[in-house]
């Protein structure tokens, strides 16, 4: 049935390195060899200075929570078991912003500005998705 499958990323030639690294539980982002700025999502070109030579670097995995929402009505049935879940924008220590889920944290405990660290969730579909939890939090749940 449609809606029963989670929204799975389909890696491209540019993004394959990112998703491969996630599978190894590493968060890679691009850094421009010209202006040294980091960027996310991965692109063919530096969005700041148009340099085409970009290198992959391992992000520290530390981030700050920019904003969040608690989803009460899931986007599809595949996400129904997770309701309520937190969707957030987080700012990586290196600068770029990512969308993610906040895990291992009570809904009432989520705060804008809270320090976070990356965790990796291995999905049975063969994809590993980076998520974030409060910095220093103990892992409360096992990845499905």
């Amino acid at each position: 049935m449609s809606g029963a499958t989670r929204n799975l990323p389909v890696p491209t030639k540019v993004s394959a390195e990112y998703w491969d690294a996630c599978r190894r539980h590493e968060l890679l982002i691009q850094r421009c060899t010209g202006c040294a700025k980091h960027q996310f999502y991965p692109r063919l070109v530096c969005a700041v200075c148009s340099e085409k030579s970009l290198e992959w670097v391992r992000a520290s995995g530390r981030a700050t929570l920019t904003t969040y929402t608690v989803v009460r009505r899931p986007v599809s049935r595949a996400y129904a078991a997770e309701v309520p879940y937190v969707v957030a924008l987080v700012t990586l220590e290196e600068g770029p912003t990512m969308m993610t889920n906040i895990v291992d944290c009570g809904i009432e405990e989520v705060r804008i500005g809270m320090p976070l660290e990356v965790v990796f969730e291995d999905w049975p579909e063969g994809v590993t998705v980076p998520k974030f939890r409060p910095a220093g939090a103990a892992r409360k749940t096992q990845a499905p």
Partner: protein
Amino acid sequence: MPDTLRGKTAIIGAADTDVGVVAGMGATELCIDAILRALDDAGIGKDAVDGLVTCNSMAEPLLYHAEAMAEYLQIFPRYCVSVGAGGGTTFTALHQAASAIASGICSTVVVAMADSLRSGMSRERALAMQSSSGHPEFERPYGAPVPGYYALIARTHMHEFGTTPEQLAAVAVSARKHAARNPAAEKRAPISVADVLESRLIADPLHLLDCSLVSDGGAAVVMTSAARARDFRHPPAYLLGAGEGHSHEHISQARSLTTSAAADAGRRAFEMAGLGPTDVDLAQLYDCFTPVVIIELEDLGFCAKGEGGAFVAAGNIEPGGALPVNTHGGMLSHCHPGNPGSMFALTEAVLQLRGQAGPRQLAKADIALVHGQGGIMSSHCTILLGRETG
């Protein structure tokens, strides 16, 4: 450059289809119905149309939408295009129609859109469509529904400026007060701030009543050059200014979560028209979710950044307020068939400028501002309309 389009074109016909649940009419039929009604309103036949601008339907998508509408009517325009800018489509389409007329490509353009989101889509398809929002690789896996993306914006506005859920709710309450004066509106029973806050949470801080409706319906307008505009049945609504602003597609790539490209669109439109926010008698603002109206009021210069919540809570946008907003009831209370949602804001602005808005006619309606945004505060277009060429 800034005055390229000022006073050069005018809307001479405007009409809505039935809205809400329109049984037995597909999206194509609704679009054709809208066109026929707008032509009647202008008092012209289909053969006078030499330009057609439409928007594709989500319930009944067509490969070449505008061509299909032209074929249905057996008209053979010189200019025929479908525009896709999400909720911003209405005014982007109008901007293109005006540009086509002003540059001499064609002389009489119909802008028409309709959809049947309520009756033409199963719940499964509607969910799948909603699931298709967001960046396919870097947002969609995290499972935010569309209200969730707007909730991220609302939360930031609350954090930065102290905007409250009560102030968000005041936007919905105001829309309902306007809708109570419009017999065509889907939702007319009064609601209170408490009703909004007690409706179920969809994505914090947005409640059900902070979200717009899901409807069937369509509308169309007829536009021609200012030189010809007085030859028709109704007083023209002249286009005085138009401006766009485009900042991102995906919310995780937004340069700012609390200042949108509405600021660029508004500035460009006001500059072209030689007008400012204090000249505006009514504002028809895109209201897919309540926080959007607050941010648009700020970005378009009707109040300072961060003061939109207080501006709304003080009653300014209600009937009788200093700046009536969405006098037809908006997408929160009148109807919202998806991308055509802003068309009703446009046809209402035309009625108000003509003095034909019946029991909800404003005492002074010389200048109307209409604004649409598509994506997640991504694609913005502001249009200023007036009773005189300016």
